[in-house]
């Protein structure tokens, strides 16, 4: 699936929810499904700055596709859910497509109202970090 197809899928899912609490529950549950990452990646080098809670992210290139792996401290469930959703959208795509992705689903699913501005700062940091990986790997490859 392309990045946009994935985004559209998330938008469709969120349209099923009337209550913002149900959206939050969905995000929390996504966080719970996140596979734990190896302890070696839970360092400051992989920490996403700007998050209130601690979230780590790293990427690996395989056959010119970039795969993301993320995790958060156990209590940070909404943050873990958000990174899980971003990984779902962006992981397994080409670095170029990741770097240039227009992530319109965030606005469309009402995530900007779902997360506080302080947490939205964290969400933006997550997106920036993933796009940065995309940008760096696309230049390496070029």
């Amino acid at each position, binding site marked *: 699936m392309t990045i946009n197809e994935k985004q559209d899928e998330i938008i469709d899912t969120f349209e099923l929810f009337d209550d*913002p*609490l149900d959206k*939050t*529950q969905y995000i*929390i549950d996504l966080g719970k499904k996140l596979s734990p990452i190896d302890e070696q990646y839970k360092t400051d080098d992989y920490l996403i700055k700007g998050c*209130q*809670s601690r979230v780590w992210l790293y990427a690996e290139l395989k056959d010119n596709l970039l795969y993301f792996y993320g995790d958060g*401290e*156990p*209590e*940070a*469930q*909404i*943050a873990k859910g958000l990174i899980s959703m971003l990984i779902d959208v962006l992981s397994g795509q080409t670095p170029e497509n990741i770097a240039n992705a227009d992530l319109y689903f965030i606005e469309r699913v009402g995530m900007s109202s*779902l*997360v*506080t501005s*302080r*947490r939205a700062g964290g969400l933006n940091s997550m997106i920036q970090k993933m796009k940065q990986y995309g940008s760096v790997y696309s230049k390496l490859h070029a």
Partner: protein
Amino acid sequence: MEVQTIDIDTVRSLFPVLDQKVNGKPLVYFDNAATTQKPRQVIDALTGYYEGYNANIHRGIHTLAEKATSAFEETRAAIRRFINAPSTDEVIFTYGTTDGINLIAKTFGRQFIGAGDEILISTMEHHSNIVPWQMLCEEKGCILKVIPIHDSGEIDMEAFDRLLTDRTRLVSVGHASNALGTVNPVKEIIGKAHAAGARVLVDGAQGASHLDVDVQAMDVDFYVFSLHKMYGPTGMGILYGKREILDAMPPYRGGGEMIREVTFEKTTYADLPYKFEAGTPNIADVVAAKTAVEFIEALGKANIAAHEKALLDYATAAVATIDGLRIIGQAREKVSVLSFVIDGIHHEDMGVILDQQGIAVRTGHHCTQPLMKRYGISGTSRASFAVYNTIEEIDILKAGIERAVKMLR
């Protein structure tokens, strides 16, 4: 004094902001320790000033300037009465509590605290009662010492006795803690500090609207607070100081209003309180602040305190049954602050889910990072109550927390 029951419905009707839905639910505003909402009369006083007699004060000869000056000085008189200061000369307008503490650090501190001198603060201080002293100590070589607290959130008074020495120049403590709710024994602290020859600054940000403040009975040297935490406008605060100390202090900011005569060779300064009020002040907010003071006085501070205590007691008992919830700050005497953590749940997640239910609480370190470190936590969720809050709202909070716990576990 006999406590009278306040008609909360009537009080609530004075606060336009409370009558709204947030995320589809009726707003429950429990972030009062950060800032309180404003009653109609405060809002009207603000617009009344701008619509009726906006003018720069003190220097103008025209009618509007006279009217504005008079309203401005009436607030000073109201504040003097509110804190029982001996004179309006000792009531300095600032931009808030932080501004007041910085003023004292930059004037009293620079003049009277030198290398090797000691400043005592407590573990529970707000960053605004830590950082200005650290800056002063870097500049002057003085030493900042910290009075430890017990697990309950109360100051360790035995440790205070040990830390108070003939090198102590200033003790600076909060009247009440914004993060824990603890009411500190400021009268005892002031008595002991004075006996040791030290001055005392009380940070009244969390005290002024809840506690009886009589600066003469306390014998406090400096008392600072913000009007926006006591139903008044933002950007406006008070520094009370004893006349003999204020007189001995150099001015803070230089500019208009604070001078007697300026020549290029030498400038002489104005008398109190204007010596510390350089530039055009925050006239509109100062003018409106009087109505906030009158609002509190009309309800009666003791009556407000009784209502808030009833809310705190009810809330404390209500949340005690929530599995894994721990209240941070269990002092015997508290203002209406309920700070808590729940096992396995991040306070930010709690804040987001409560907000989605229309409940406004504060989450995080509450500008008290060293205090959070003392408890080994990164932050708390904090509900803080004001006169317009109700028992029903606490029931909503409890149900909201339970819902969040269910979602997150």
